[in-house]
């Protein structure tokens, strides 16, 4: 096996920022807003770097799709311990309509090109909350998938994954090459220390275009409108169960 792990990282609005909708309702305000790496992607990078430190794999490659700014996110992954980066260049306009299907096509193509043994992604991005990219990538490659991973053990030729599911925890054994998606409790990501950030400057980031990978970016989805959630209104206290039923009927809820 090549011993190479591909990690996808996404640049999203920082989790602590208060999101505001653009006045024209076409999306959210991103200009001048603080961005950082998707928290689940951080966990994915951390898992890959841990595997490398345990000498279970040889190389960690961080990938991100988007305009120029995503290089910051790749650099953070490099500072956390990834060996090299791949920046899939997507123009700002195309980025607006870039969704999980397009990204998974790109990742599938790259995985074949780089002969990756594993692809590790975050389970979902905190902006789209799609929770689709990992699953779609595995399907396109016809690889097994270990999603919502809270524990990963890499062994010769296969991976044991403990998954967080509604009923509790499920342990599965899947063959490599495989796609894993990281859940919250998989690990605690390390800080990119300043000396490591400086060392990361010397690591390479390759530029690739989707066309080079034979991927079409056209999306069949169109965002019609973005709205803020309705303002939470004050509740009403009622005296008895009959009152409650009456009020619910009034509001047309039952």
């Amino acid at each position, binding site marked *: 096996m090549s011993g190479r792990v591909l990690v996808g990282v996404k640049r999203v609005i920082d989790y602590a920022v208060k999101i505001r909708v653009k006045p024209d309702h076409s999306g959210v305000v991103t200009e001048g807003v603080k961005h950082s790496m998707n928290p689940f992607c951080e966990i994915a990078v951390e898992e890959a770097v841990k595997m490398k430190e345990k000498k279970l794999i040889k190389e960690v490659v961080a990938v991100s799709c988007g305009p120029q700014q995503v290089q910051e996110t790749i650099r953070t992954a490099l500072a956390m311990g990834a060996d090299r980066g791949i920046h899939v260049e997507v123009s700002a306009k195309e980025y607006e309509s870039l969704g999980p299907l397009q990204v998974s096509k790109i990742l599938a193509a790259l995985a074949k090109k780089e002969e990756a043994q594993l692809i590790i992604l975050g389970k979902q991005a905190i902006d789209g909350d799609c929770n689709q990219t990992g699953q779609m990538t595995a399907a396109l490659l016809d690889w097994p998938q270990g999603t919502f991973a809270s524990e990963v053990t890499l062994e010769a030729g296969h991976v044991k994954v403990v998954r967080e599911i509604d009923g509790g925890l499920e342990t599965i054994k899947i063959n490599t090459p495989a796609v894993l998606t990281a859940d919250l409790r998989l690990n605690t990501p390390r800080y*990119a220390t*300043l000396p490591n950030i400086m060392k990361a400057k010397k690591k390479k980031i390759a530029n690739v275009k989707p066309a080079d990978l034979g991927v079409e970016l056209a999306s069949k989805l169109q965002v019609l409108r973005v709205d803020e959630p309705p303002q939470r209104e004050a509740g009403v206290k009622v005296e008895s169960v009959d009152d409650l039923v009456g009020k619910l009927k009034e509001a047309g809820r039952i």
Partner: protein
Amino acid sequence: MSLNRIINSKSFDIGKSLLAFNLRYNGKFVPHPPQYRCFRTQARSLAYAKDLFLGQINKAEVFPYPEIGNEELEELNQFVAPVEKFFNENVDSKKIDEDAKIPSETLDGLKELGLFGMQVPEEYGGLGLSNTMYARLGEITALDGSIAVTLAAHQAIGLKGILIAGTDAQKEKYLPKLASGEHVAAFCLTEPGSGSDAASVTTRATLSEDGTHYLLNGSKMWISNGGFADIMTVFAKTEVVDQEGVKKDKMTAFLVERAFGGITSGLAEDKMGIRGSNTCEVVYDNVPVPLENVIGEVGGGFKVAMNILNSGRFSMGSSGAGMMKKLIEMTAEYATTRKQFNKKLSEFGMIQEKFALMATNAFVMESMAYLTAGMMDRPGVPDCSLEAAIVKVFSSEGSWICVSEALQVLGGLGFTKNYAYERYLRDCRILLIFEGTNEILRMYIALTGMQYAGKILTGKIKEMKRGNLGMAVGMMGQKLRSSFGGTKDFGLTGKDGLVHPSLADSALKLEQNVYLFGSAVESVLYRYGKSIVDEQLVLKRVADVIINLFAMTAVLSRASRSISIGLRNHDHEVPTPADTGTEMYHAPENNDASIKKIAEQILEKRAYVCAHPLDRTF
């Protein structure tokens, strides 16, 4: 003909005395043959502020506002992210204040991040950051006063001596472990009997009988990191024999390792603020210090001490600004939600005034700090000690006042320990005391400038007294012009003006002020002569004026740049220089409109709105 010869010879004398002044100012006496040209063989003379004392604006030093390259800016932004994250997630300031201790996990985290060696060169394991980048990170570390002081005591002063005056052997031996945080450093100058009067230290270092080492005896007080520092820069008196064979006591700087033995640290002081920072007495009892551990020259310790202190001072500006910006956010959240008399607090004028004050102060502190850092980062090691002192005085007092106003907005809540305000207030108080008390620094600012102006003016006045008609007529003309309200054009406004046209009003005010200040300095010198050193109240007023002038300059330069390059929210920067200018101009003008405008902008966004002075648009 003979008159000409007299004048020429006088000019020659003046030239020589000016030249001698230049050379002697930098502390070393360089013997020189009579020269007609000034060779720049030593560090550049003081950057900008000195010339203000002569009523001159040294435009090239401060316009345009210093910038850093795109690559550097990107790297800086990369650095900021993990440090901010660490402070948000791993620093419990309330607990640190209550326990009066920084947990060792937190310290370890800071060491791993690389924050213990920010300005140590890369080859010795540090980050090799420039002054500007150090200032930027200072904005974040300032969020916890105890951590900020612990880090500053270690690197801004503790190990600085090695950086600026150490030999290569000393650097190689000590810097790597200091940069990684394995060893922590401390700066040991103050003693029970000598605080502001630093030259009066009584700790002694006597040469051993066999001449291989010194024996250090004495005690130091108020030493930050004193309880656990492994490496200390200690200042002690040594016996020196001067050129004429007379024995004198002069201060020497020593690199002392705790491992040398004989060092005891007292109990940690129970302080009002920065309680997590360790401060204690350190006693030296016959501590053996090898000869090769002298920093700089034997007897040259005072200068080393002053250089160390001068080099770290400017960062108080960015620390203050960082803290202010956080406070504005916190306070704005409250003011826009709390209602009284059926109106939100943010709608009341007196509350708006407080926000305008906080924002203006943050803006000025940022502008001054990065202007000074930018000047210091220029090649040639310019001497910005005057500017750094100005930044320190303004920032310490500005922070103290603004934190108090922020607390006031929250009223009773601000007074409780449930909120951070009272802790910030207690932490801020020390800013006016350490690193040179503001009183001493005001004397330094006023006297250094006046000494410079004095030397130049003495020449002119002597000329006049000896009957140099041309000089006399020139000076009289100047006096007449100023008494008739004439102004001097310094080239800040107008066609080739260096300041953006929308700031022309403020620029004119600055020019006016500088011109008047120059005349005022002249009159003061003429009236008091050498006895000016004893006129503290006059000197205080002089210092206050020059602090304001530097603030106005920094603000104009930064705002000019922001507008010219179209920085985000640059239009929000325009009212600030006007406001700063008018307030400092002491003209009876009403600032209410611009106060309201600034407050509105902040309260709408619930945060400080101006772009960072280091940001670029291209």
